[in-house]
Structures are given as structure tokens and as C-alpha cells.
């Protein structure tokens, strides 16, 4: 009897109850996958040299995360504990192939630019991490929200880092020249691009700066040591 009433209250819970909205908004700041959970760093470093690939990558990850979380959450009672990694990787690989084909069909030039990195979504630990930590133990709608929220939190960091690196590294944004040509040293001006920004170590240091800013405003995230 008691379980029945619990189930009924669960059914009555509105789609965007406070708890569900928290699932969406938490990963943006308090529980950000990159700066707090430390998941999905590799691709954040690899594809943030320019803004455009970073945006496409973020959108692909939103799709793979949301669809993957739904599938895993539907299958969660059928997956044997011992072989769950292989099941999850098969689901991710199938979804990534789907994204790859869609990009090839409709956004061919971007897909060419991203080629390797789309394949690397398979090994993006943010997806496996959320499957393990959330979708294996929660319902379909909640898992969907968790997937969208986490992928969006990941995308926000990706876009911030790539704006920073593209602007200071090449003086452009989305491929459009923002710093006037006449400012450059080669044209008799005073400015030159910081080529260091294009090297991988600077991606790490930009993420560190984002963490610094975020934690200065959100002091409860500060670690003990």
C-alpha cells in the first residue's frame, strides 16, 4: 500500500518541479561537469582553439548526452552490472555514428573540420560519467534533464574558453576579424597576436582562470587543500 501512494505522488510531480529544474540548472554552476566534477577535460582542451567547432561540438554532446541518458535509463534494470561498460559504450558509439552522419549530410565543412573530435565524443568521460552516476539509477525524464543540463554546462565552459583563446590567439571570433588590421605590427601598428594561446598548455591555464573566477563568486565550491 505504502509504495503505491509513493508512486502516485511521484506521478503527480509536475514536469518542471523545483527538483527537476535544479537538475537542469545545477550543472551550469554549482555542479559544472568541467570545473567541479572534472569530467570531459580532454576535448575541452583539444577543440577550443576556435569558436565555431566548439559550438558544434557542444551541440553534438547535448544530443548524445540527452539521447544516451534516455536509452540507458530505459535499459537500466536490464543491464547486468558486470557488462555495463560495454553496453554503455555501444550505445554511445551508435549515437556518435548518428551525429557524425547527420553532420556529414548537412554541415559538411564543419564535419570535416571536426572529423577526429566527433569520434572522440565516444571517449568523452562526461558521458560515461553521467551514465554511471545518474542514468543507471534514475527515471527517464530526470535522466533526460540531467543529460541536457550537464551537456549544456559543458558547452558553456567550452564556448567561454574558445572565445578567450580565439580572440587573443588570432584576433578573430567565429572566423571574423575583430581586431583592426591596422593595429598589427606588420601594418605599422602596436598589436600582435599571442601565439601562446593556440598551444594546448594555455587551454589548461584558461580553464584554471575560469575556475578562479567561478569560485571567487561561489565560495562554497572552494576545496580544503
Amino acid at each position: 500500500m505504502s509504495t503505491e501512494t509513493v508512486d502516485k505522488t511521484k506521478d503527480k510531480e509536475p514536469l518542471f518541479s523545483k527538483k527537476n529544474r535544479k537538475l537542469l540548472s545545477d550543472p551550469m554552476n554549482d555542479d559544472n561537469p568541467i570545473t567541479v566534477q572534472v569530467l570531459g577535460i580532454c576535448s575541452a582542451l583539444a577543440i577550443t582553439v576556435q569558436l565555431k567547432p566548439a559550438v558544434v561540438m557542444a551541440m553534438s554532446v547535448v544530443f548524445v548526452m540527452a539521447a544516451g541518458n534516455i536509452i540507458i535509463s530505459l535499459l537500466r534494470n536490464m543491464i547486468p552490472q558486470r557488462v555495463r561498460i560495454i553496453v554503455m559504450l555501444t550505445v554511445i558509439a551508435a549515437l556518435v555514428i548518428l551525429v557524425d552522419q547527420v553532420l556529414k549530410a548537412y554541415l559538411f565543412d564543419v564535419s570535416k573540420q571536426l572529423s577526429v573530435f566527433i569520434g572522440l565524443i565516444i571517449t568523452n568521460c562526461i558521458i560515461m560519467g553521467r551514465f554511471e552516476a545518474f542514468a543507471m539509477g534514475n527515471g527517464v525524464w530526470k535522466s533526460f534533464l540531467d543529460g541536457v543540463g550537464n551537456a549544456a554546462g559543458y558547452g558553456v565552459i567550452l564556448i567561454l574558453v574558445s572565445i578567450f583563446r580565439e580572440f587573443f590567439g588570432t584576433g578573430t571570433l567565429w572566423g571574423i576579424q575583430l581586431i583592426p588590421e591596422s593595429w598589427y605590427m606588420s601594418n605599422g601598428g602596436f598589436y600582435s597576436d599571442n601565439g601562446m594561446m593556440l598551444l594546448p598548455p594555455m587551454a589548461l591555464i584558461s580553464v584554471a582562470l575560469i575556475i578562479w573566477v567561478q569560485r571567487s563568486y561561489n565560495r562554497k565550491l572552494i576545496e580544503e587543500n
Partner: protein
Amino acid sequence: MQELVNIFAKAIFVENMVFAYFLGMCSYLAVSQTVKTSLGLGAAVIFVLGMTVPINYLLENYVLAEGALTWLGEQYADVNLSFLTFILFIAVIASMVQLVEMVVEKFSPTLYSSLGIFLPLIAVNCAILGGSLFMQERSYSNITEASVFGLGSGVGFFVAIVALAAIREKIRYSNVPGPMRGLGITFVITGLMGIAFMSFMGIKL
């Protein structure tokens, strides 16, 4: 023999998985709090890389590459299965990781609980898939070279994660600005270590 030593040293220092390609960062950052756990994860990565690279080498050369199926018979000579690369490589990696997870859980429950979610996450450690993909790209001439490369990359990851863990144990005694404590300063350290390791680039034995 010299060729093998060259591949091994190159995989550790010049083409270090972490510092030259920034692969495998997730577990690298999260499991480097103490030297002890980082030793455990490093050893697991050496094992998985050392096993998967030769297995994937065999798969690549006898199943996937164009004309690799010729040993089945002449009519298979122009079959090209290379579009299955990702799925087959990741399946091999995932099964090896599952094996390691069972072994660690059985023989070292403390290590198992301290590695937590990052043990199954070795399967999605980009360094592992990266190792197999680099092996494919560089087309090593025989399986010994491929295994030496796999072991070398594993040792490179091991060196990187243990070095970072040692630095982090020391940095606990320094007065880092509050918001940079933990993750933030670790990113900066890794960036500086990466710049330092860039000086190995171009060295040839």
C-alpha cells in the same frame, strides 16, 4: 633492438600522452590527490594500454584494414572494414577494463574504493583509445613494436600522474589563494609541466 628502445623512450618523453597530446586528462586530474592511488591507476593504465594496443594491432592488420582479410581466401582481398575501427577498438578496450575492474575488486578492495568511478572510466580514458589510434596511424611494422609503443605510452602516463601527485602532496603546505585550491592550481601545474615537456619535442635517440 635500438629501434625498440627508441620507440619506448619516444613514447614516454617526446610523445607523452598527457603532456604532448593532453589525452586522458579526466582521470589524470581526479585521481592524482595522493601518490598511492595514482600509482594504482598508473599501473592499471600501463596494463590496459600494454594489452589493448597489441590486440588492436592484430585486429587492424588481420580484420579491419583494406585487404587484411586475404588470409580467409582470395575473394576477400578487396574487403575494407575500416569504418568499424572505432566500435571494435572500443569493444576490446571495454572488455579489458572490465577484466581489470574485477581483478582489482577481488584483490585490493581498498584501491577499488579509492579509485571509485575512475576505474570503469579507464575505458573512456582518451589515452587508451588514443594509443590504439596512434598505433593505427603510425603503422608499426610488427607486433613487438606495437606492444613496446603501448607499454611506453602507459609508462608515460604513469610518470605524468605520479609526478603530478607528488607535486600536489607538496603543494598542500603552500598558501594557495582560496578559489584556486585543488582543481585550479592543478590545471596551472599541468599547464606548466606541459610547457616543460615541450622541450623534449624533436629529440631523437
